[in-house]
């Protein structure tokens, strides 16, 4: 999964939207008859607007992405889209973003996400500071981040694939979805680690000797029910949003859905095995 995702990000690249590159985004909806996408495409190519992409939005609408439009070009496009009065095209949304703002938004988003990741490592290391045996606490933090990266990379890969074939774009809402997944994934991993911590303490109190591997296994067993249930309920809400919600949040719901599933997977099959691996690895070196 991880490899496919990274591969598709590398090969297809991301379809970065106007939010981050600057440019114009025009959404129109048709009343009554809707023209063919191919027909619109061929008409638009006559306008010499440079690179543009057209995407169907719902049954009656289209989203057009172009370079930054002047007022004249916008009027021109609208009349083109209505085929000289043959169809009723109404402008629903127009977003024009200058390149500097796009760049700033992108940098801000990156910085915010990076700072959040660093803070999480620090916090997890701090909370688990009393549990330094057999795996030191900062490693919990690092593993949390590894599984978090997994949860973020997988949906990004999905978007890269969808971007290639369906024209899905990386826009501001996509960043929102990633942030949400981030919070979710950390929560998921922490719940499992928390149980590990508790079992370790229990063992110590009872003076019971148990392999670290067994302790982790037991903890997993005790928490996977919760992990699955929580992910399932969230998935339910997201599915409802995806199928019945507005067009605007459909992509958001889809990305979140992928992230939540990846999160449930990684907290069970990635984070804990990593914890054990780190431990055995250290043991072997001794």
């Amino acid at each position: 999964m991880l490899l496919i995702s990274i591969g598709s990000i590398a090969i297809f690249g991301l379809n970065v939207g106007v939010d981050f590159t600057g440019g114009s985004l025009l959404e129109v909806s048709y009343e009554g008859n809707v023209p063919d996408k191919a027909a619109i495409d061929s008409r638009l190519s006559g306008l010499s607007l440079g690179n543009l992409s057209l995407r169907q939005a719902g049954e009656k609408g289209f989203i057009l992405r172009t370079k930054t439009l002047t007022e004249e070009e916008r009027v021109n496009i609208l009349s083109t889209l209505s085929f000289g009065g043959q169809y009723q095209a109404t402008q629903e949304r127009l977003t024009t973003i200058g390149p500097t703002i796009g760049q700033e938004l992108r940098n801000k988003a990156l910085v915010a996400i990076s700072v959040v990741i660093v803070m999480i490592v620090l916090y997890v290391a701090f909370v688990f500071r009393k549990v330094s045996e057999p795996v030191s606490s900062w490693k919990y933090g690092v593993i949390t981040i590894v599984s978090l990266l997994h949860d973020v990379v997988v949906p990004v890969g999905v978007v890269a694939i969808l971007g290639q074939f369906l024209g899905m774009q990386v826009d501001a809402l996509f960043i929102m979805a990633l942030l949400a997944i981030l919070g979710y994934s950390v929560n998921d991993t922490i719940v499992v680690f928390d149980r590990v911590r508790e079992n370790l303490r229990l063992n110590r109190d009872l003076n019971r000797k148990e392999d670290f591997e067994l302790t982790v296994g037991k903890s997993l067993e005790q928490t996977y029910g919760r992990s699955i249930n929580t992910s399932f309920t969230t998935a339910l809400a997201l599915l409802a949003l995806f199928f019945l919600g507005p067009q605007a949040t459909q992509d958001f719901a889809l990305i979140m859905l992928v992230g939540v599933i990846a999160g449930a997977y990684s907290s069970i099959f990635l984070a804990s095995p990593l914890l054990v691996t780190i431990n055995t690895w250290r043991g072997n070196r001794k």
Partner: protein
Amino acid sequence: MAAILILLAGIGVGYFVYVSQEYPDSRFHFSLGLDLAGGSHLVYLADTSGLSQGDVESSMQALRDTIERRVNLFGVGEPIVQTEKSSFFSGIDEERLIVELPGVTDTNEAIRLIGQTPVLEFKLFVTKQGNVDEEGTLNIDASYEPTGLTGRFVERATLQFGSQGSGLSNEPLVVLNFNKEGTDLFAKITREHVGDVVGIFLDGALISAPVVQEPITDGTAVISGNFKPDEARELVRNLNYGALPVPIKLIGTETIGAALGGEALQKGIFGGILGLLLVALFMIVWYRLPGVVAVVSLGIYLAVMLAIFKLIPVTLTAAGIAGFILSIGMAVDANVLIFERMKEELKDGKKTKEAASIGFSRAWLSIRDGNFTSILSAIILFWFGSSLIEGFALTFGLGVLVSMLSAIIISRTFMFALGNYQNRRLTRALFGSGTYF
């Protein structure tokens, strides 16, 4: 007892949320962001290159005030005008002006509205019927007639301090020099109307109403409008530079049709409610009696959150709602954690109350750690993020905070209120979960 109180309070809050939405003139409507309500969002780049570093801030302030006055004049409901510095991370130093106009979906109209220069007009006072209403107040609009002389004819404006006429004060005066055309027009007006009042209007508001003493043929007019020095300076600047204290350039627009916004909102609410119902159904089927408790406490949680959105008020945007939905997920998660722990204690043969009590205290650590990292993330995002991310961070952070309280206070009180039962088959069937009977 406490449980009943909480339940009543919850119903009360829910009722408030409902009622305040029903009454059209209530102060506590949800305030919807532009992406949901429709409207225009404009970003201007302010060219401050001609200003010294120290003047930038005050000029931006003046710019903001001027634009705000202009927008208000147009009668847009609750516009937002704010200045913003480009962030450190973009690598460039820019001053920006953000204008949000709810309900204005015609971008050109909005741009024209903001780009226009201040309108200076000279109007003649005329006595006629209907310009004084019943209370004896003067109806200013009706009592002045345009003369055709406007700020367009002003060649140069200067600021002077001094006194006009017999006054001794050292008040600021704005001296206008008309161009050739304006000089002729002004001479004609003053020649024909000696003794009349000439009203001087700025952006539609009367700022000065001097009486014409004698014909003025040299093309200068002096406005003494009881100005504060700053106001006079601004007026002079506006008249000289055509428009604003700082030249601005449009660098970003976003317009969302009301239809699109309204539809998005409706569908979003519908999807959200259905999602919640599905979650509630699952909780009750899987966790049975505790599931019912969780659903009730989630209901109260929702009511509290919506009330907070109204009272602060939090402007709801698509991103904000995404954050809210996520926080609901977190709230459900807290309950699930607790019930799973409780189930384990029940398996050990404990009584229900004891199992609940241990379940809560054991789950608390997980809930605390999970939610603290979430709140931490929310704070950082709020700090660093652009306006979009801020909306998300705010509702998410608030949601997690309230959900934590709802899980440990509301759910807990209800669970204890259910009473204490022996660990029998029936009890296990009621309090257990999943396939455990």
